[in-house]
């Protein structure tokens, strides 16, 4: 019972990080039609900025989140404004370009921070655990879960309840009509891309609490993001949340129950979803 509960908590917080990582990629892919393979690299940039701020400089965790998010956001915005905006609707060009940036960002990260692994580092504010009867929950995992939920709520509100969300959704379906209404879609696209990149950076700072940080993250995370997107469906916040939590739980319980074959449980989940519902559990068809 204790084992199940602790795995549940671990799976949930891990799933929240997966949601944070994948949601930005899913938004950009689903709403703007851009396949951004550099999204994992932006996460990595966030994680390293976070490490610098609260391990090296011993500053505040929340400041690290802010700086990490904005740092990754600005980098993402640069990539979009200078390069990606010329490549709308050209999938293979986007893929090659953004993977080029995975190489570039990874190499620069090694240049700045060195190539060694950094184990997960708990911010001082989040040390300790909360006792509930027999069980004790680490505060980090609770905070991560809450941050994930807050971001999910914010993004869902933005997507479904605001004018910006409506413009983006409409722009995806009929770009010319939206521009005909006098809306500057370029600005909206840039803003969405900036936001998605910010979330990747935020995910990096938060994720570094649970996962180790290393220069291979940029490409290693792609498969996990892909799994979340395939299971949850492209382009909706709800889909990313469900996909992230499911993959997080499956992976955590897989590692506990069948160690050695844990990698394959994710593939299994992907295959099952693809066979049953190719657009993902909550995807727009």
């Amino acid at each position, binding site marked *: 019972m204790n084992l199940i509960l602790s795995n549940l908590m671990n799976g949930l917080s891990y799933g929240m990080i997966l949601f944070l990582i994948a949601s930005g990629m899913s938004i950009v892919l689903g709403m703007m039609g851009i396949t951004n393979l550099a999204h994992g690299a932006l996460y990595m940039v966030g994680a390293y900025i976070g490490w610098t701020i609260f391990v090296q400089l011993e500053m505040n965790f929340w400041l690290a989140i802010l700086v990490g998010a904005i740092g990754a956001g600005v980098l993402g915005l640069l990539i979009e404004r200078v390069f990606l905006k010329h490549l709308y609707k050209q999938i293979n060009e986007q*893929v090659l370009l953004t993977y*080029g940036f995975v190489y570039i960002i990874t190499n*620069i990260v090694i240049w700045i921070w060195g190539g060694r692994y950094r184990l997960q580092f708990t911010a001082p504010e989040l040390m300790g655990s909360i006792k509930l009867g027999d069980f004790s929950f680490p505060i980090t995992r609770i905070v991560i879960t809450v941050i994930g939920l807050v971001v999910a709520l914010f993004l869902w509100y933005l997507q479904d309840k605001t004018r910006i969300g409506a413009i983006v959704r409409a722009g995806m379906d009929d770009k010319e009509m939206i521009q005909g209404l006098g809306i500057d879609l370029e600005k909206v696209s840039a803003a969405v891309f900036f936001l998605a990149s910010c979330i990747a950076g935020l995910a990096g700072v938060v994720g570094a609490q649970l996962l180790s940080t290393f220069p291979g993250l940029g490409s290693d995370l792609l*498969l996990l993001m892909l799994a979340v997107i395939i299971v949850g469906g492209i382009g909706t916040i709800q889909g990313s949340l469900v996909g992230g939590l499911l993959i997080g739980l499956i992976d955590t319980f897989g590692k506990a129950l069948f160690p*050695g074959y844990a*990698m*394959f449980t994710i593939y299994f989940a992907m295959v099952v979803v693809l066979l049953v519902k190719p657009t993902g559990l909550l995807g727009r068809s």
Partner: protein
Amino acid sequence: MSTIAERPKLRTLVSSRLVPILIIGLFLIVIPVFLPADVQGIMTKFLIYAIFAISYDLIFGYTGLVSLGHAAFFGAGGYVVAVLSLHFGISSFWIGIPLAIIVSALVAVVFGFISLRVSGTYFLLLTFALAQLLYSIAWNIPWLNSEGMQGIANISLPSLGIPGYTWTNAKYYFLVLLVAGICYYLLERITRSPFGHALVGIREGEARMTALGYNTWGFKYRAYVFAAPFAGIAGALFAYHSRFISPSQFGLGTSFYPMVMAIIGGAGSLFGAVVGAALVVFLEYFTSLVTPERWPLILGIIFVISIMYLRSGLGVSLIRFWQKVRHSIGYPQN
């Protein structure tokens, strides 16, 4: 009279692609003899990647399918010869290469069936996931790894069944050159056949081809399966060449290599893919002489530049240059 009879013959000789092929062929045969052994090794690597790149170009450049999983076949071919050498002690070229062809084709039969159910972004993601599946199999199953390491080491150069034969870098280079020549010829035949033209038709407008009565799914599936064995051969030659194979031969980075080569050289042109392979391999070599740890950075910049500025491809520019030369000496442009 005799001059008139002779002229068309001469004209077809020059206007065919024979002259450039002869020049390039002669270059590839003669030059390596004068190169130091390590540069011969680089030439070999270039030819192996050229096979890999023209294989990918059949589905990417001609058919217009953007796959992120071509490493699946490259890795499959490599692991076939590696496992043969590790567990069965077989190093025969005549067993290794045919098996690599069969296994990579079988992988394509299965993977193509799964991934071609979808198109566009989903196809891209699925091919990536399938190659990653092989990656994690290679990583996790002990049978596919040498004792105490990730990957298989000590793969010997293939035995050709000739008694007393010893390998040198140059001899292996010429074996690879021969194989590459055959692969190029076969793929050239495929792309110039009605089948190849149908593939280009699908790339340009699949709906139109469907309307013309083509079973486009079948064409795409066959292109996918035909391309795989060439990548398998390249992978097997690569495993022999580097004497070592690791799961990263299935990795995303490996899948991107033929893609960037095809784009730099000019997608949809086999010659272009070869030019792209030469460029990337030699740039990597020169970088490794100067600043090896910055190669990924430079490779990334190559990706960006090739997408933003070289999208028509350098190989295609070379072909246009040759056509201009021909035109200027009085042959009609085609």
